[in-house]
């Protein structure tokens, strides 16, 4: 093996876009859908919740702003599902770090930033699937209704929920980098349920004791919950809601970037 070999380094190229591509995104999504727990929590659970609470004849058809109560609840459940889905998607980094896959990927041209972007995109695709699952099943039941002239609210509300769930993709990434564990979603599932109650997704906040109502206004799902329902209710947007969502997003995204930097410095 001592013979001198000519190696042509000039035909060696680095990939474009830091290695991000559709094959990877497709496989990431396939992998997520293979995880039964993820599918149950992100896609089936929110749909079942809607079927239970959103189609109750006692109140489902009562008017509420530009839609009926059922449509309002459909948006609540879609938000819960999308938040869970994006959290789970972001938290995948935790499992992959625990398994050593992220280290294996360091042997490829995929940059650390490329990796986090792929996780983010995958989380957002799963979040969108969750919104679509709830909306489609809801539409099939025929109970939720937007009032005449407000049919576009299906799209607007769905988009609001989806874009809002970015906050929780950031949370998932942050926790994923913070806790390298294969079981991080068991912990996050519980946290999300508490946040959903505190944000008023499952139960009207005004029926809570006053102290809890005040505390609830500072929790991460509160602002988003108000914002995604604003188009249906048509009552305008309060600065406090926007501030809540933006500040929590900044905290989660900042935490994720901080942990991500620490992780790549250590390798």
């Amino acid at each position: 093996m001592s013979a001198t070999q000519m190696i042509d380094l000039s035909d060696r190229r680095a990939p474009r876009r830091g290695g991000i591509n559709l094959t990877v995104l497709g496989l990431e999504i396939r992998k997520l859908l293979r995880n039964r727990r993820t599918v149950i929590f992100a896609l089936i659970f929110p749909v079942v919740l809607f079927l239970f609470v959103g189609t109750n004849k006692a109140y489902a058809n009562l008017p509420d702003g530009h839609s009926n109560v059922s449509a309002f609840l459909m948006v609540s459940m879609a938000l819960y599902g999308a938040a869970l889905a994006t959290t789970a998607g972001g938290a995948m980094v935790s499992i992959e770090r625990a398994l050593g896959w992220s280290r294996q990927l360091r042997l490829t041209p995929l940059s650390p930033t490329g990796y986090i972007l792929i996780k983010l995109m995958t989380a957002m695709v799963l979040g969108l699937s969750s919104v679509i699952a709830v909306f489609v099943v809801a539409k099939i039941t025929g109970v939720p209704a937007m009032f005449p002239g407000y049919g576009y609210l299906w799209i607007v509300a769905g988009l609001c929920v989806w874009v809002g769930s970015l906050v929780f993709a950031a949370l998932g990434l942050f926790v994923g980098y913070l806790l390298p564990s294969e079981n991080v979603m068991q912990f996050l599932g519980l946290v999300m349920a508490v946040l959903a109650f505190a944000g008023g997704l499952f139960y009207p906040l005004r029926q809570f004791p006053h102290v809890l109502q005040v505390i609830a206004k500072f929790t991460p799902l509160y602002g988003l919950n108000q914002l995604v329902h604003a188009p249906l209710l048509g009552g305008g947007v309060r600065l406090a809601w926007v501030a809540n969502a933006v500040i929590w997003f900044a905290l989660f995204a900042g935490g994720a970037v901080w942990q991500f930097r620490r992780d790549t410095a250590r390798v």
Partner: protein
Amino acid sequence: MTAMSAGRQLAATDLPPAIDLRGVSKNFGDVRAVRDVTLGIASGEIVALLGPNGAGKTSTIDMILGLSRPNAGDVEVYGMHPRQAIDRGLISAVLQTGGLLKDLTVAETTRYTASLFADARPVDEVLKRAGISAIADRMVGKCSGGEQQRLRFALALLPDPELLILDEPTTGMDVEGRRSFWASIRQDAERGRTVLFATHYLEEADAYADRVILLRHGVVVADGTSAEIKSLASGRTVRATLPGASEAELKSIDGADSVEVRGDTVFIHSGNSDAVARHLLSATSARDLEITARGLEDAFIALTSDEGEAR
């Protein structure tokens, strides 16, 4: 140790060496894992990085792969930063610590990795060369340790790297698995790929490397062909009781390579133990003479353990 000092000369070409480490050190807190290591590996060499656990093999490899940064010194791979070499598919590796995703199949994992490179060999081809075509559709979580290691090997072949690095590639494999894994590597290396592998199995270094670099406590203690390393292992140790002996005096004995005095007991390592024994018995008051052969394993231990420090 003079015979071992130079190692192989780098092939004289205009091309930069495959690996060029200059005064490289790596610390983890107070632990000095790698200390001022300078070495070059030319294209086409098959080199074993041999040493016991904790000798600094993995730390050295991590720096060559750009997975960690040295505290001092420079690391270059084909004249560039390791990260640039990885981006261009020039180097790849089979690491002990590189994890795999359990819920992708063997073929999917390979396709995933292939898509990240600008140019990659076809998935079918690398699976075949790693000997895992038959389990392409198996979930990684259902693969044995040996099969997963072969998958890592397949992934490492994807960019058709000039330099392949293997960190303890056969750990946890049985004898048969180890043999067939090395057969695959060897077959692949015949195409002219440069291979650097870390191992703590002396036989592996001996059987598969052209050149062996011995590491101990982060320092290169020997660097030469495996034949040269083996010659270190030849010879015997003569032990005798000889009160009042001085090391200098013993070293002057014809044929004594190294000596050690522990109280009244002396140890003399020699390629010609007969001559040493004859001298001790005829010219000195040595008694209780004992001659022991040193196997490959002993040579390795002597070179890499603390006991060997005096050498």
